[in-house]
């Protein structure tokens, strides 16, 4: 049995026929070749497969592809469509990437947070990425990368730069 679905991935429409027992993660990676979304635990615990479904972060490993019918999906490829997203640049600048396996999921969760709340405090950032495991960095660099994309932090940085110029 196959189920017809229409999904929009990174702005492009796809008409697919999927087996009901396939999850969205596998369809993205295997059928659409979007391997930026990572497969970690497959059990909704590690967050590596985090994508944005209608702008909200979800685990693509626990979502039946058939249930994504008529939904808008953003993967890391869509976030980087016009060159590196400010979050990606910040992750590089702050050393928030080591092995990189958690990074696409982290960026997606962080993007959803900043879209909903452009100036989160540290607790809100930590809560937003609580479902994303990183086994390399210890999270400090990741939190500081996300913080550096908030207006209060960028103002602070501008102010610091201003002072040093004087």
């Amino acid at each position, binding site marked *: 049995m196959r189920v017809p679905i229409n999904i929009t991935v990174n702005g492009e429409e796809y008409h697919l026929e999927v087996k*009901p027992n396939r*999850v969205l993660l596998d369809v993205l990676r295997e059928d659409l070749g979007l391997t930026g979304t990572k497969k970690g635990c*497959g059990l*909704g615990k590690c967050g590596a497969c985090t994508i944005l*479904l209608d702008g*909200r972060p979800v685990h693509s490993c*626990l*979502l*039946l592809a058939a249930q994504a019918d008529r939904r808008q999906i953003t993967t890391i490829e869509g976030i980087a469509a016009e060159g590196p997203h400010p979050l990606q640049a910040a992750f590089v600048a702050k050393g928030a990437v080591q092995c990189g396996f958690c990074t696409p999921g982290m960026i997606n969760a962080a993007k959803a947070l900043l879209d909903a709340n452009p100036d989160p405090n540290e607790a809100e950032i930590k809560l937003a990425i*609580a479902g994303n495991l990183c086994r390399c960095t210890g999270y400090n660099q990741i939190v500081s990368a996300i913080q550096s994309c908030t207006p209060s932090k960028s103002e602070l940085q501008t102010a610091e730069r201003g002072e040093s110029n004087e």
Partner: protein
Amino acid sequence: MRIRPFDYWAAPGLAEALNELDLHGADAKVIAGGTDLVLNMKKKTILPRRVISLHNLNELDFVKSDDSRVRIGALTKHADLAANPFLKQHLPILCEAVGLIGSWQIRNVGTIGGNICNASPAADSAPPLLVLNAQLIVASKTVEKKIPLASFFTGPGETALETGQILKEIVIELPRQRTAGCYLKLRRRKAVDVSLAGVAFQAETGSDGKTLAKVGIALGGVAPTPVRAPEAEAVLVGLTLDEALTKVSDCAKIAVKAASPIDDVRASASYRRTIVDVFVHQCAQKVLGTLKNGGGN
């Protein structure tokens, strides 16, 4: 992890879903957000032949209120409940508890109806809904029934839901007087962790604002189902807030009697009992303190 093949049908509406469920009976399994079902299908603990998806049923995704009660559609997502302004103002204990479920990713997909029907003994939505005396509206093809949540859970993963029935909505009577509530959950990680023990405590003052007219205490993760602790509630009901504050220890000790926890990989039974004692104590102190200081909702 592969999922065994199954037939799939996305219902366009509730009536159609109930028809289809009536047709296929126990062979069919209903899927809402799927955060539990898909996981169970991956682990091969649930192997449905046919899955009926409710994800298009926007008619069951709502929070509606009037003067006396609030109705919550079964397909309302945890993230939406946790952020709902009306619920945050009137029933904050529910927002607190569902805000602790899984991770942001899970709360964006998982539904309150799914959390109830999955019937985990440790379901975070259950203790607050129990102390709020929630009623469930359950529909089948032919008839609609009202079931108190207190008699809905029949065992781990088991409910009073019969073949052919779908949970439609949750109804909660709004408190008349000033209330305060508190939900405490013990877990080893700050996210994506099942509750080792959870305690919900809700108290309502009488019209004088100084006595306790109603007290609700419910425990999660420490019995085959989420349970109320009526004997512990009775210790405090009718007392003035000052009197009640002196009885908090007794209340907590008696609440432990309602627990019948098991030893498992996450915690021992005796540790869980201790936690119930400690959490009921902490919840009661906080709630009674809030009411005494004129706080609450």
